[in-house]
């Protein structure tokens, strides 16, 4: 039973901040994934929570108790290391039983508990082996067993699957999720693998250069990325980001760039009736984000380029094409294909179910639904949300609110 609170934790190495003012409140029973690219401070944060290194600033609380100055062994947390850190001279049974032995549990009880855990993890036949006589997957399970054996308040895991092959990783992923469901304990899980984050987490905390970019459910993080960084980190291929300007036309906001004109589905005051000298958001430098799977191919021709007539000919309810460009390459993923298109100055990836009939060199026209567009401030990178709390006839908030 552990609720873990991280309050404004900073960890410095020399002048550099590996973790920079991170605050998290992890509820009891949650599966929190710390996600981020290599070197963003995930391990550092996890080790600070575990008590293996002291934060330079901030506090760490377990169930409301300040443990910032309490060494690792006083925190009642279990950790699975990326290297597994199995004690090489001890048998599997002794490795799993180690935490109990350290707590001076009676021998008979240790043996019974080790047998139970080995049963759960399917290690019973391997109890007398030493770590070097095990396969990678078996080592991983022993490491898990050592964490499980004493029923800790929370499990901390630092990329526990990164040394496994793809197939085993998928299987173990499911096992860990299952374990979490059954134990109902708090899990904090570090990974740079977005698939692990999306599939296992109840909440994902995305870190970038030591700072927390966003925390939310996998769905939130994927569907409403709070920053351009999160948008570009999640998804494979990740979200397309295009530099664009905001323009009002016919009372509608559009994101406009060379060869790009995307209606955003946001109604503003009629352009003909500027009350205070123009439309509210015009000229704002933004980044337009559209996920590859949300781009619809309205036409792809091997000719000199698409014309308006072909656009109107394709009966997409999304309206006319909004991005035009050329297909550079097409990657075949089996079930789908990814077309890399050059649109204006940027490359845009489109995901389409096969066969989509896309060929490198063709001209392509794409469209997207307004609800599938994301706007980010070009300087801060934060997500822009339109606030429409006022009637449409009244000029809305001048500046989109930054979340």
């Amino acid at each position, binding site marked *: 039973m552990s609720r873990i609170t991280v309050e404004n934790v900073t960890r410095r190495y020399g002048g550099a901040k590996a973790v920079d003012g991170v605050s998290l409140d992890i509820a009891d029973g949650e599966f929190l994934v710390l996600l981020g690219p290599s070197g963003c401070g995930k391990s550092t944060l996890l080790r600070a929570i*575990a*008590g*293996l290194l002291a934060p330079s600033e901030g506090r760490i609380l377990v169930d409301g108790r300040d443990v910032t100055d309490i*060494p*690792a*062994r006083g925190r009642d*947390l*279990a*950790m699975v*290391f990326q*290297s597994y*850190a199995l*004690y*090489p*001279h001890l048998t599997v049974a002794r490795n799993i039983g*180690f*935490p109990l*032995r*350290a*707590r001076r549990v009676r021998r008979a009880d240790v043996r019974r508990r080790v047998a139970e855990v080995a049963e759960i993890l399917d290690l019973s036949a391997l109890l007398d082996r*030493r*770590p*070097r006589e095990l396969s990678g997957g078996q080592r991983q399970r022993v490491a898990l067993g*050592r964490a499980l054996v*004493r029923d800790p308040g929370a499990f*901390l895991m630092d990329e526990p699957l990164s040394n496994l092959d793809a197939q085993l990783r998928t299987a173990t992923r499911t096992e860990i999720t299952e374990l979490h469901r059954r134990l109902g304990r708090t899990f904090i899980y570090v990974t740079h693998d977005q698939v692990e984050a999306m599939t296992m987490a109840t909440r994902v905390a995305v870190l970038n250069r030591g700072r927390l970019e966003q925390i939310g459910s996998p769905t939130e993080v994927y569907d409403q990325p709070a920053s351009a960084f999160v948008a570009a980190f999640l998804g494979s291929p990740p979200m397309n980001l295009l530099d664009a300007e905001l323009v009002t036309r016919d009372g509608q906001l559009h994101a406009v760039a060379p060869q790009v004109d995307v209606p955003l589905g946001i109604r503003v005051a009629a352009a003909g009736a500027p009350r205070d000298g123009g439309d509210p958001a015009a000229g704002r430098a933004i980044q337009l984000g559209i996920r590859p799977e949300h781009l619809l191919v309205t036409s792809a021709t091997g000719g000199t380029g698409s014309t308006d007539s072909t656009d109107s000919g394709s009966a997409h309810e999304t309206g006319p094409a909004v991005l035009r460009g050329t297909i550079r390459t097409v990657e075949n993923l089996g079930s789908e294909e990814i077309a890399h298109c050059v649109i204006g100055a940027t490359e845009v990836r489109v995901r389409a179910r096969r066969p989509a009939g896309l060929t490198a060199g063709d001209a392509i026209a794409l469209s997207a639904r307004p609800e599938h567009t994301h706007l980010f401030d070009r300087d801060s990178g934060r997500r822009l949300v339109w606030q429409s709390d006022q009637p449409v006839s009244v000029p809305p908030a001048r500046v989109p609110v930054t979340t």
Partner: protein
Amino acid sequence: MFVEVAPPTQLAPAPPPSAGAGTPGPSHARRSAGSLARMLGRGVIPYLYLAPALGMLVVWIYRPLVQTANYSFYSWNLSPDQPAIPQGWHNYHRLFTLPEAGNSVLRTVAMIALLLPFTIIIPIIVGLLTAEVRGRARTVYQALIFAPFLVAPVASAAVWQWMLTPGSGIVNRATGLKTNWLHERLPALLSITGIAGWQMLGFAVLVVSAGLASINGDYSEAASVDGASRWQSTRWLTLPLLSPTLVFLVLTTVLLAGTWTFPLIDTLTQGGPVSATTNIYYLLWQYGFKSFDAGFAAAAGVIFFFGFTLVAAFLVWLSDRLTFHDN
């Protein structure tokens, strides 16, 4: 009608890479006498590189070894104009019946036992205590401990002789004892091993520190998360993982105790008083180069060669057993 798609045949030629890649040449046909010579040369060259080292080994190690074994069956006083008289196993018989030889073996064992605290126990303690020291302080610290190792034994013997002088020596003045360190039986033995230990301590500390540094830090971190105290993690993880290093140090101590103590014995006590510091090496040397009984010394040398080979083989075997390769 269905037609099965044939599996790729094993020898299916790969489609030729676009351009510029050469086709395999007819290498067999082109192998000429010249290239055959080159092949032979290729076989010989590694041995030519090895030859100097091998030559040194044979001339300086194996030939004397064989000669020693040979001399152990003769009676000879080392002078070139005297004939070596064949003796059969007589030298060996003398060796095993001479009480002096047995006593010197016991004294050797005692010296090794007294040296072990300096090469094992103190280095472990110092190594564990200084493992946390980092950066420049660590270098300074290790240099300080290592320094005695660099002093020539004869020089340090001279300094210690002066410090151990009865009456005016700094040791007796500091401790208030009246011991005549180099001329009483037990104190002389303790002095010799103490000085040798003092010299070897730095070396052993360095070896232990290197051994500790090579232990993956993850283990102690995992242990601390697992709830082990510092002492538990030292006892259950650090020491077992350090054991190959410790066996190496035991091996070094056993095999080299004679070499380390010899110059000290020769300069400070000459094996006395009343042979109290005569170990087998010194005894061997006395027989060979004082009594000029080369045959007897050679026989002793042969016996101890085999004795130490056995001890070394056992320790190497033990070290292998104790080594746990991680990942």
